[in-house]
């Protein structure tokens, strides 16, 4: 091997170690005894004989944590379902036609990327109080959709663009209506795209914080990110418990990400750069 290759590999390893260290330290804090971690000079390597999983039991014993997880899951599933249905239809339309309506939707997508969440919250907060949907799942799902619908519509447009129009045209020549062509020919082909968009929207919803923090008031409807943040405000932070909770709360996201990474990578760049 050339010296340059070795150096590059070492550099890459260095970047990967620094990137992964926060995860490593979170898990370490969760599984090592408190005295090994709450130290002026903690050992960086785990003492395998002293690994304990008590903290994980501890977070499930704290009654709020499972509730938060459940709420995040409900909000995530509802947001994803409605966003994907709406966006798949819109994405197909955007891909096959370029009219005024389509172009204005594209423009709104760009604008929606410029709006701070803390700003759009103000009119939503007022509107929700008028409509009586403040502190409801519905309200939070709708708020999440302000981010996911423009994003997923544009993602889906990209996926549909890669499905040749000739396929539907052939089906229609054979007598299928356009709706049938969409349902029987295009949608099955768009499945990988729909899967990627689903994971993408789900991850976004799982991460969302400021909408839930502001639009949900009842503790029993609170989501995971807001619940986790409330731990930090406490006088004495129980780091071991907090890190165990952190590990559990990102595990689904990371697993989803690692297994679907080949799918997602394309969508991630497309989604992030969409409309620009």
């Amino acid at each position, binding site marked *: 091997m050339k010296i340059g290759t070795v150096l590059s*590999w070492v*550099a*890459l390893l260095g*970047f*990967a170690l620094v*990137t*992964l260290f*926060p*995860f490593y*330290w979170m898990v370490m*804090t969760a599984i090592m005894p408190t005295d090994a*971690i709450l130290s002026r*000079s*903690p050992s960086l390597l785990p003492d395998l004989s002293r690994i304990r999983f008590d903290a994980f039991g501890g977070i499930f014993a704290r009654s709020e944590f499972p509730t938060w997880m459940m709420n995040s899951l409900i909000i995530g599933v509802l947001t994803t379902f409605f966003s994907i249905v*709406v*966006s798949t*239809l*819109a994405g*197909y*339309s955007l891909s096959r036609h370029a009219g005024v*309506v*389509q172009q204005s*939707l594209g423009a*709104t997508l760009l*604008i929606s990327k*410029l*709006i*701070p*969440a*803390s*700003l*759009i919250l*103000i*009119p939503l*907060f*007022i*509107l929700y*109080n*008028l409509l009586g949907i403040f502190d409801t799942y519905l309200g939070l799902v709708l708020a999440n*959709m*302000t981010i996911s619908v*423009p994003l997923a*519509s544009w993602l889906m447009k990209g996926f549909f663009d890669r499905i040749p129009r000739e396929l539907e045209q052939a089906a229609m020549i054979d007598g299928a209506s356009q709706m049938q062509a969409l349902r029987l020919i295009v949608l099955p082909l768009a499945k990988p795209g729909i899967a990627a968009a689903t994971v993408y929207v789900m991850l976004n919803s799982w*991460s969302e*914080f*400021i909408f839930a923090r502001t639009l949900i008031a009842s503790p029993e409807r609170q989501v995971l*990110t*807001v619940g986790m943040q409330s731990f930090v405000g406490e006088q004495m932070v129980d*780091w071991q418990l*907090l890190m165990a909770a*952190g590990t559990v*709360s*990102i595990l689904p996201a*990371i697993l989803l990400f*690692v297994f679907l*990474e080949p799918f997602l990578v394309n969508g*991630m*760049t497309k989604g992030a*750069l969409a409309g*620009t």
Partner: protein
Amino acid sequence: MAMTSMTASKVRQGGWLDLGFERRRTLLSLALLMPAAATVLVLIVYPLYQVFEISLREGKVMNFARIGTLPLGFGNYARVLSDPQFWRSTSTSAIYVAGSVGAALAIGLATALLLNRRLPGTRIFRTLILIPWAVPGVIVSIMFLWIMDGSFGVFNAMLRDLGLLTGDHAWFVDSRTALIAVIIPTIWKTYPLITLTILAALQSIPTELYDAAEVDGAKAVQKFFHVTWPGIQGATALVVMVSCLGVFRDVDIIFATTGGGPAHATETLALYVYKEAFQYFRMGAATAVGTMMIAFALLLSILLGAVARRSKY
């Protein structure tokens, strides 16, 4: 009936001739777009219009349903522009965005170039390096609050071992280092997308260009500036723009680490908007700042977008 079969035969010959068919297609296409259009109108366009309107309403109401009864004027803008904290937040935002995205770009570019060398194992490295992107901002905050904790943080322990620090330093609590402390997790979360975008651009550069440069006797540095950089600058400009916009408008990490403190040291504009609105209930001031933020972001994205487009070849 005869009409219909004629229509059908025309479709077979070439659908563009048939207006009825085309119109049906257009109608269907509009119908498919309706749910998304309705969502966007009700949840983005109308609220944005309201933001603008509230920013022009002078005075304070207890009942927000009656905000429309207040007189119109530029009072909120005048008040905000004369608030020293607004200007402080503006410079905090500038440092926060430039610091985070600048460092993220350096790391993103370096990692993308390394990953593009297709060394053994890079496939796994790519997946690993991208994981921070999938972690919620609040969890990122909690991880770094712990690592950079004053007394028991492992970061300080390492610094002490290296002899760079004696005693404790509470990174998030000390107003001199709080901004740096919030920039670090932001870099960590921001750089993977930059890596990924630049890597995709690198992989689309034809290898023939490098071969040709080789034949012409180009050195590594020359190859970078004459082949690599022109090939990635468009994508880089785009991803830098998107990252800047993201960091500019995001509040999660700062909210969950310092909450804008200590003594407003990390209060960016996005957080200033939030505090004005939901801590002091000054909706007028909050929306005035928000409107200016959007105007500024729009201007920036048009400018950078133009740069990105011009450099595509």
